[in-house]
């Protein structure tokens, strides 16, 4: 597995920019090495629960980051798209609900899940792109809550309140993909691939045009770009990434129910993206890691300090509040400012500042 991951990392950026080896900062190599040898350092819980969940939430938030950061469209539908992908896996694959699940092989239901979820996300996008700013948020939030209530009341397809259980990944190549180490690498590879894909697309003509549209749609229209089509295509691309995240999520939980895409979950994705920073594709993953760590360990932190563990939401809320207060552009913004401040610091030899 590690070998395959290595080749993924080394081939993809090569296409993006020649001379890539020197251009990748040392920190990135160190991070890649740590990620690859993580199974030696961490226990199963950290691998499966903390990192597996981080990569999955990071991918779903990445799809929002792509829309918001490059397209200027804050969409709250990404979690619903992911959940629909997960539902499709449950319906076309195997689950404990044998009355509904069709039980197709994996190479059929995975493409179906991605395609159906992408079509759904694209349709929502087509509705939403004609609006701007807060209205985009409202229309996507409205559709997301409609999706939640629909799945909760529909028993014929979505099995209502109970949803589906016992959904496990296929046993490919004799590997149980739900055991911690394989699942860690599976999510890592998917996360790295989608990260590289977003980086690549953001530098492609399409991505540049999209960023142009974000900054000035009228001028781009005057230049002959089809603004609406570019935005809808951005939704389609983002939905495909979100749907892969949704498939991994349903495998990790082994079940899916309306609560998976409930309003809190929808908002959480926005929070993750904002915490991490929507300026660059690495932001959502940083945000997801912070979210998962807070979510997982805040009750323990509280009890360590002798407080009642049931107030854990307070800690999460305060953490997010502090971050947004001191750094509206997320952890990435904080990092950038820290670097800038270091760069501005006077040179110890000449006493001059660089700027």
């Amino acid at each position, binding site marked *: 597995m590690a070998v395959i991951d290595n080749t993924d990392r080394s081939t993809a950026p090569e296409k993006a920019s020649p001379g890539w080896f020197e251009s990748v900062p040392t920190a990135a190599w160190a991070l890649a090495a740590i990620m690859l040898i993580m199974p030696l350092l961490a226990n199963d819980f950290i691998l499966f629960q903390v990192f597996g969940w981080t990569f999955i939430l990071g991918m779903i938030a990445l799809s929002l980051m792509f829309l918001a950061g490059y397209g200027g469209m804050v969409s709250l539908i990404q979690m619903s798209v992911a959940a629909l992908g997960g539902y499709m896996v449950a319906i076309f694959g195997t689950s404990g609900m044998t009355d509904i699940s069709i039980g197709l092989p994996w190479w059929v239901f995975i493409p179906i899940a991605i395609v159906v979820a992408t079509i759904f996300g694209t349709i929502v996008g087509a509705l939403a792109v004609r609006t701007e700013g807060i209205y985009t948020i409202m229309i996507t939030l409205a559709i997301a809550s409609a999706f939640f209530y629909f799945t909760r009341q529909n028993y014929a397809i979505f099995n209502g309140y109970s949803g589906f259980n016992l959904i496990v990944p296929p046993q490919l190549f004799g590997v149980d993909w739900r055991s911690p180490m394989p699942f860690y690498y599976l999510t890592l590879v998917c996360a790295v691939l989608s990260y590289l894909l977003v980086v690549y697309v953001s530098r492609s003509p399409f991505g540049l045009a999209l960023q142009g549209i974000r900054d000035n749609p009228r001028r781009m229209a005057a230049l002959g770009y089809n603004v609406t089509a570019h935005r809808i295509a951005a939704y389609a691309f983002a939905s495909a990434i979100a749907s892969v995240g949704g498939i991994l999520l349903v495998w990790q939980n082994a079940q899916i129910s309306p*609560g998976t895409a409930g309003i809190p979950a929808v908002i959480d994705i926005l929070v993750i993206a904002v915490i991490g920073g929507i300026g660059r594709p690495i932001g959502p993953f940083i945000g997801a890691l912070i979210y998962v760590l807070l979510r997982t360990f805040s009750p323990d932190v509280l009890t360590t300090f002798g407080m009642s563990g049931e107030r854990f939401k307070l800690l999460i809320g305060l953490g997010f509040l502090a971050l947004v207060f001191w750094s509206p552009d997320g952890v990435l913004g904080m990092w950038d400012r820290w670097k800038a401040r270091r760069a501005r610091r006077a040179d110890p030899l000449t006493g001059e500042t660089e700027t």
Partner: protein
Amino acid sequence: MKKALLATAMAAAIALPSMAMAQDNTIKIGILVALEGAFAEGGADGVRNVELALSQANNMAGGKKIETIVAPTDTTPDTTVRQARKLIEQDGVDIIIGPLSGSEGIAMRDYAKTIPNNTVINGISGALETTWVDPADNFFRFNLDGAQWGAGLGSYVVDEKGWKRVATVAADYSFGYTNFLGFAVDFCRSGGEIVERFWVPLGSSDFGGVIAAMPEDIDAIYLGVGGTDAINFLNQYEQAGAETNLIGGTIMADQTVLTSRGRAKEALVGTPTSGALAEDNPDPAWQNYVKAYQDAFPEDERFPSPSLFGVGYYVATLAAIQALNAVDGDLSDGQNAFREALATTPLETPLGTVELNENRQASGTVYINEVVEGPGGTLVNKMVGKAENVNQTLGMSADEFRAMGLPSRDTPDCAALAQGG
């Protein structure tokens, strides 16, 4: 700063598991409980009751010290399984007590199958499927399920009240179906007739359509919704003229509804309900328990008397303590002896004696209450009867019960039950 913090947190997280293994003379119990969302108050009462039960045993069972770790959930199955995994893999608990709500219970049944060397004792979740469909060997439930809680009410309203034609308004999700099934089985076999069934989504606020479509010639309405939904229904029903009697599901006449303001109250007096407990139960075991609960916590940090959720977690903890004492705290051999003790020893609880069947599901007592006007115009529940030894199949044979089908909008079929019974 942030980075350093993050690195510390990560390092701590990675380093922790090796230290988290249980020492030889302590037993770790994880409390899996909803502390977010609609059941947060009840969940907090669950935690209090685990503490109460443990402090009554001096935090010792089977000669070993008991340690607890709380894992909060938000009632979604996703979070529940995540938290359970954290309890087992990260905190290294031996036994999990929980969860609280129905769909969480089903998720935990499936999760329990993946941890064969640990034991799960249900908190208060009441889905029938948890211990009926493909149950897990290491999942034990010492509370009655949602269908059992409805038992006894049907025959009570037919025999005592003479109400034979009933329309039903119930919540359109698994607990609504299950709780209704318990009522309907008993009701139809006693000769009652269900004229019309209305299913309303959770969180409904407008019942105008349902009230307008209500048939004229009925003796009572069965109301299987709870909390604010019930208050909304009652207010609108009162405004529309409130002509007939009411029968309540298990979660209908709870404190939120009884203490609500407005006209809802007027419709409620004389409404029979059924459930796991009766607040004025004269049984000394119950009275002693209520007193212990009231003495253990200051008045502003508890309910006036233990809630349904609290009692569930209390009974589950009693079960764990009793079984640990029986095996002298020996959890070796995949906890086999401990499970054997759990499954076979009858448990004395504040709600009467509880025994488990072959699916590790409790049989016990269901209490019939009626809403009456108490001192100062407040509404209180008064115990008017009880149905004892209600088992998982509601007195039917397992095959008959299975043939009836799982609870849904159309199950059970009332006419078929009336003929069969």
